[in-house]
């Protein structure tokens, strides 16, 4: 019994899983699905512009649908399945109470054009959340409208754009460290700015010199610095206050990408570091579920001088209740409605669940867990930077590559067979063969210990020359997927197979 499936063996094993073709392949002509209520008025049909061929949706039964998606789900790995140390993504536990609350009919079934007196509760949610996020940011006003981090970036940069325009000081450049997430430069482009990449220093953080040099070179053409803090190496930008001062000195703004707020929430406030505008990723720091790629929410927080440009409308509170205010100098809207309201409800629920001290505890425990993992893994992998790291850290494949020609990709895929989700790989780009690990605060030491053991086992097998994991993963329902083939001859829909 000691070799039992629940014993100290690899977490990953194999079990019965069912195959399932696409839902269209379950279809049978004439099979009926969902039943609508009967029509109690006369049936009418249009006579012009009639559709000639019905859209070929599947014709399946309720059980077909349930089985199909139940089976599909069984091929996914998720936080609820196991440890998911995907750096930069803050894959922490998503409390289920949030799902319950967001599904309340009083939240789910509200039309955004409901007259204000009939949606006071919805406005209260938005207003309260914006207030709390402002307190967390140490900034003056917040707009919860942006639908994701990338939209938050664009919104923040647009505010900067509007601010400079108001001051008749159109500018061209945004300074972005080389550790930045890809959305940062892409957002700059979208906001009409050119990106000037700043090299990070030997410690992995931004030194003062390159900023000074850029200021020297581009002067008042610099609109802003856009910095992620802690940065994508998991390192706190210790020079941020000084750098901010430098930028303020030329009338430029400091934008902070707050996607990594999980590391510092309650422990340090962007507003206290000289930041003028930032965005949050509610789907990271405030644990709204990632859902296989969204929805998220990317509220922006600003210092008061940027507030007149915030997206419209603003929600205001007075003794008469909540109401809308339309700012004359607003950049406009960046999304329909007031934002991804359902995500905002979850985030508010999460913050109220934690309270002030609980929110701070998030940062403490996420940094503790990450450093615990780092302490173990830096024994077997090359640590990218010795600098003290926060909620995540980077190691690389350099040892394994040198000694046995095994790459990060192989190590990541091998980890899957051990029953874990791999870390973020090959990002940030500044570290060749990077593995960016973010365990989050909701993992227990037991689970982290198992992750360490899995890595140890992989490294041991590599270094003892036993395995190179070129065929990993082998336990999954599909083996190594040919991504190159997918790109070479893209097939993007069932009908595209034959296009």
């Amino acid at each position, binding site marked *: 019994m000691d070799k039992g499936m629940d014993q100290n063996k690899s977490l990953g094993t194999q079990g019965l899983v069912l195959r399932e073709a696409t839902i269209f392949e379950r279809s049978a002509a004439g099979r009926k699905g969902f039943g609508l209520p009967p029509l109690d008025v006369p049936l009418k*049909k*249009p006579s012009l512009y009639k559709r000639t061929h019905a*859209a070929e949706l599947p014709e399946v039964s309720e059980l077909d649908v349930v089985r199909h998606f139940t089976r599909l*789900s069984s091929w996914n790995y998720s936080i609820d399945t196991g440890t998911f140390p995907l750096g930069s993504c803050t894959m922490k536990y998503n409390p289920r109470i949030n799902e319950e609350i967001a599904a309340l009919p009083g939240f789910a079934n509200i039309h955004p054009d409901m007259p204000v007196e009939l949606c006071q509760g919805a406005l209260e949610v938005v207003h309260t959340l914006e207030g709390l996020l402002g307190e967390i940011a140490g900034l003056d006003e917040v707009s919860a409208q942006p639908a994701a981090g990338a939209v938050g970036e664009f919104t923040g940069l647009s505010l900067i754009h509007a601010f400079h325009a108001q001051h008749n000081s159109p500018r061209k450049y945004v300074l972005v460290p080389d550790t930045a997430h*890809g959305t940062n430069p892409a957002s700059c482009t979208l906001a009409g700015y050119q*990106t000037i990449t700043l090299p990070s220093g030997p410690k992995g953080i931004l030194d003062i010199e390159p900023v000074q040099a850029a200021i020297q070179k581009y002067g008042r053409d610099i609109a802003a610095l856009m910095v992620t803090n802690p940065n994508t190496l998991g390192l706190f930008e210790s020079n941020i206050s000084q750098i901010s001062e430098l930028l303020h000195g030329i009338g430029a703004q400091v934008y902070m990408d707050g996607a990594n707020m999980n590391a510092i929430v309650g422990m340090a406030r962007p507003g206290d570091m000289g930041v003028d505008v930032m965005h949050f990723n509610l789907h990271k720091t405030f644990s709204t579920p990632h859902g296989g790629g969204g929805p998220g929410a990317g509220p922006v927080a600003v210092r008061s001088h940027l507030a007149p440009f915030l997206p419209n409308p603003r929600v205001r509170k007075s003794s008469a209740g909540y109401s809308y205010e339309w700012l004359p100098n607003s950049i406009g809207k*960046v999304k*329909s409605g007031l934002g991804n309201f359902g995500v905002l409800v979850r985030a508010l629920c999460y913050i109220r669940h934690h309270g002030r001290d609980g929110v701070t505890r998030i940062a403490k425990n996420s940094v503790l867990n990450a450093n615990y993992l780092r302490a173990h893994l830096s024994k077997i992998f090359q640590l990218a930077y010795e600098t003290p790291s926060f909620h995540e850290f980077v190691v690389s494949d350099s040892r394994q590559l040198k000694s046995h020609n095994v790459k990060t990709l192989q190590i990541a895929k091998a980890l899957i067979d051990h029953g874990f989700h791999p870390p973020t790989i090959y990002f940030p780009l500044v570290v060749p063969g990077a593995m960016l690990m973010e365990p989050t605060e909701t993992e227990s030491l037991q689970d982290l210990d198992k992750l360490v053991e899995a890595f140890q086992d992989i490294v041991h097998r590599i270094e003892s020359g036993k395995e190179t994991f070129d065929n990993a993963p082998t336990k999954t329902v599909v083996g190594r997927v040919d*991504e190159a083939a997918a790109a070479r001859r893209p097939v993007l829909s069932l009908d595209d197979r034959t296009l």
Partner: protein
Amino acid sequence: MPSFPLTPDEERRALEVIGVQTIEDLFSSIPPQVRERAKMDFGEANAGLSEHELRRYFDGIAKHNTQHTSHFLGGGVYDNIIPAIVNQLVLRGEFLTCYTPYQPEISQGTLQAIFEFQTMICRLTGMEVSNASLYDGASATAEAVMMAQRISGKPDAPILMAASTPPEYKTVVNTFLKCNSSPPIEVPWNKEGSLDEEKLKSLIAEHKPSALVVASPNYFGLIEPLDVIRKHLPADCLLIVTMADPSALSLFETPAALGADVVVGEAHQFGTPMLFGGPHVGFFATKKKFLRNLPGRLVGETVDDRGQRAYALTLATREQHIRREKATSNICTNQGLIALRTTIYLSFLGKQGLIQLGEMNYSLFDYLKESLASHGIPLKFKKGLHYREGVFEVPNLSVRFDKLTANGIVPGICLSQKYSGSQREEFENALLVCVHPGHTRAEIDALVEGLSHG
């Protein structure tokens, strides 16, 4: 406060392994003055709440939103009937708590579902390719315009946009274009609420636009004559059709068949509640030749090393994480779970169900329209081809609106609030009224009664 998994003992053990004394030590690279100022005050929210207290708190808030008994709001957000299975299947942790499917070997569930979503969007719109979702209809429209600019090779090329596009869509497009180019030029609506073809012709001649954006149904519920419009456009001017209400695709010809190059829109009504405006889900479909210009994620079919059919994210070379400042858009997180809801809903609704849904909307509106007409409340744009919503001229609107609302019936959207200037005057007594599949004849009768008196 929810509990964190680390026990005090484990905390000690972790600190020991790390080699520091306290957790605070791990934060030493934060400048002391920043550390010291990090004092937050959440007011009454300082204390964490247990699940029980959270329920009490939010139940109390949510109650303020449920004071109405029926409503006729539409205009881009549509009430619909959501099958129980949609709500329950998306709660499965494997869907709810997974990430963007970067590791295809452990993400086939999400990947295949997106592939199915893409297929459905193609089949609905008649287009060849679809992406994996965008934030919402408005931002999908903005992305379409930006794609047209990319394709034209002129990032600041002039864009025409029907003035009858939903107001929010227009504002969002404006915001996204603002920093790089001039805002779209509006093509007004004619007396019948449809795109003014004469104006269109002259604007084309004047501006040589790289794209025209038309909403169909437009904000007034009117189906636009896309084929006719297409004929007015030069070959290199893309026809972008935006559909805040894609349920119209149940009954009406696909934009593709009528000559559209890009079809974007908002699909939330297919299985996702109104949720005060979001999260909803934008879709984006176009011709395969524009594949490499598409914003957002794409899932493609491929094989695994055992020769099995498999799916993977593909053409990432367009995306920000590879292309950075040269990416086709900055989109990263989008609307995965809402796209999944859409896929589940459309699977269950099915081919016949979609047609039935469209006929229901069409018939309910027809009944509403006839009833209101017989009570002396005519459609503003009488000749147009309406689908499920329309603008009515209601005498004494504000009084009747308030009275109905006080009785729990929200009769629609007062258009004067949505426009400014001369358009606002045109719409002084205009009410945009929309039906949805949950409506009964009795509810419509009550609305008609309320709108025709007082």
